[in-house]
């Protein structure tokens, strides 16, 4: 099975990020990490590829920087990476990104596409569905469990009150929630091998896709602040303060 996994490199969430005051785009450092939520997709892809003697191709759009995040995923075991990176793509919305990724994935060929349910930095959470529509395949979304049997993909799809079992024939797209699998850590051997794995860099033009983003940020402003209240050290009597506040709120 040919598995394409959509991965995004993002600025390290542990360090504060900056927005360009003019364009309102995130200022991207050269050092970017693999979006933590995409580690689950990579792991899922690797497991399914191992099981079906298939391959895993990473597909990523965005400033590639020093490829640190992509190397992380290659070191986990992915076979190759395709990166779409050119100056015109900065600030792309989900729809434009999905169009680009669809073209790149189609060019590679695929049986299964895996994406995260939402990215850590953008979290629009709609790209997988847009991508599935462009590819003309069913979208098995919000999967908390995935299995493949022959040409059928089965998932447990998160619902508001539990989960549904959903299945579809390949080619298909699956979006995976965090926690779907336990992502492996790259081994030393994996890290060494990642250095010589193929990484192809394309522009939108190479794919014959024209990108236009149709939304624009017009203002960024602080939210009205919530006044923070009292902070007390528990001296063994703190529970009484809580009781008093519950009474004041008229809930007990």
């Amino acid at each position, binding site marked *: 099975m040919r598995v394409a996994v959509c991965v995004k490199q993002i600025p390290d969430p542990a360090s504060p990020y900056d927005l360009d005051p003019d364009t309102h785009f995130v200022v991207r450092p050269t050092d970017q990490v693999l979006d933590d939520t995409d580690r689950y997709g990579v792991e899922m892809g690797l497991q399914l590829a191992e099981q079906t003697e298939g391959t895993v191709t990473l597909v990523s759009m965005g400033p590639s920087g020093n490829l640190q995040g992509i190397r992380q995923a290659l070191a986990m075991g992915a076979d190759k990476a395709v990166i779409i990176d050119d100056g015109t793509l900065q600030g792309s*919305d*989900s*729809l434009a990104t999905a*169009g680009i990724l669809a073209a790149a994935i189609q060019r590679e060929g695929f049986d299964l596409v895996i994406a995260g*349910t*939402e990215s850590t930095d953008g*979290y*629009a*959470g*709609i790209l*997988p*569905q*847009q*991508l*599935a*529509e462009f590819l*003309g395949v*069913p*979208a*098995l*979304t*919000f999967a*908390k469990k995935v299995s493949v049997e022959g040409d059928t993909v089965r998932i447990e799809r998160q*619902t*508001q*009150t*539990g*989960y*549904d*079992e*959903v*299945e*579809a024939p390949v080619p298909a797209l699956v979006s995976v*929630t*965090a*926690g779907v699998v336990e992502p492996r850590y790259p081994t030393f051997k994996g890290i060494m091998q990642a250095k010589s794995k193929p990484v192809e860099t394309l522009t939108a033009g190479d794919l014959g896709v024209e990108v236009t983003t*149709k*939304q624009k*940020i*017009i203002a*960024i402003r602080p*939210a009205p602040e*919530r006044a*923070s*209240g009292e*902070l*007390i*050290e*528990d001296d063994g009597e*703190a*529970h009484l*303060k*809580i*009781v008093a*506040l*519950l009474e004041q*709120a*008229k*809930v*007990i």
Partner: protein
Amino acid sequence: MAKTWVFVEETEEGPATVGLELLTKARGFGGELAAVFLGNGSEENLAALGAHGASKVFHMTPSDALPTAAAAAALADLAGSHSPDLILFGLTYTGRDVAGRLSARIGKTILSNATDIAMEGGMVTVTNEILGGMTLVDAIFENDPPYLVIARPKSFPAEPSGGGAPEIETVSLPDVGHAGSAIVTASHTEHLEGPKLEDAAIVVAAGRGIGTEEGFAVIEELASKLGAATAATRAIVDAGWVAYSKQVGQTGKTVKPDVYIAAGVSGAMQHLVGMKDSKVIIAINKDEEAPIFGVSDLGVVGDLHKVLPKLIEALGNR
């Protein structure tokens, strides 16, 4: 005159609450207001949509297929023939699936995670929150209508307007071929005790500070004393200690109870967006630097395993 549509799917309790919230909000835009309803067209369901302001309902009945690809195709056709200005979706699983597919089908961008929507003279501005709700971002569309917006639940109140029975137009779901070939083979409902998290007046939430899966027992005990719903951070949901349906935050539920008690919760940005609009927030955390204290009305720096048992006892004596 603006023409607004609200996509609403059926849930176990009738039309999804977020759909009713969006209808309520959209009434304020003036003009025509219609609901696109995916579910059982019972009189009750349709009446609820009418009562919240929909004068017309486009009604789709799902089959055993995952309805999203077909619903998006049907909606694309409807939008083509009726030219709505604005189509609103709730941030639910089905809402996101239908909105995403529709967007790609008709080539219109989506503004997602909206917490506010303003319409002025046909200009639509959509606000969302970043950095745990500390910063607001206003954005506009640069394509022609329909403008597609996905809004977070609980961003607006749901209030009936006393509207009468809506006009119904039945819409059949088209065959979309391979894209529509996902089938639902079984449904499982997690049985949860106590009040529903989204509606509870009091919520007691646990984070990794409870230490172990067994640590959740004290949270449940406190909740049952208070008639509260229990909730959790993603950290302990991912650890498998608590069901996902209890997760509060960016990728979980949004709650606005009268009182939110957070025990052993650090207060990560992604958790705060789901609960920071609660009326009263009480936090118990060992670490006085924990960000949760930044939004708390009462912060207790202490060990939850000491404070909560005493609190339960004190409540029991009342």
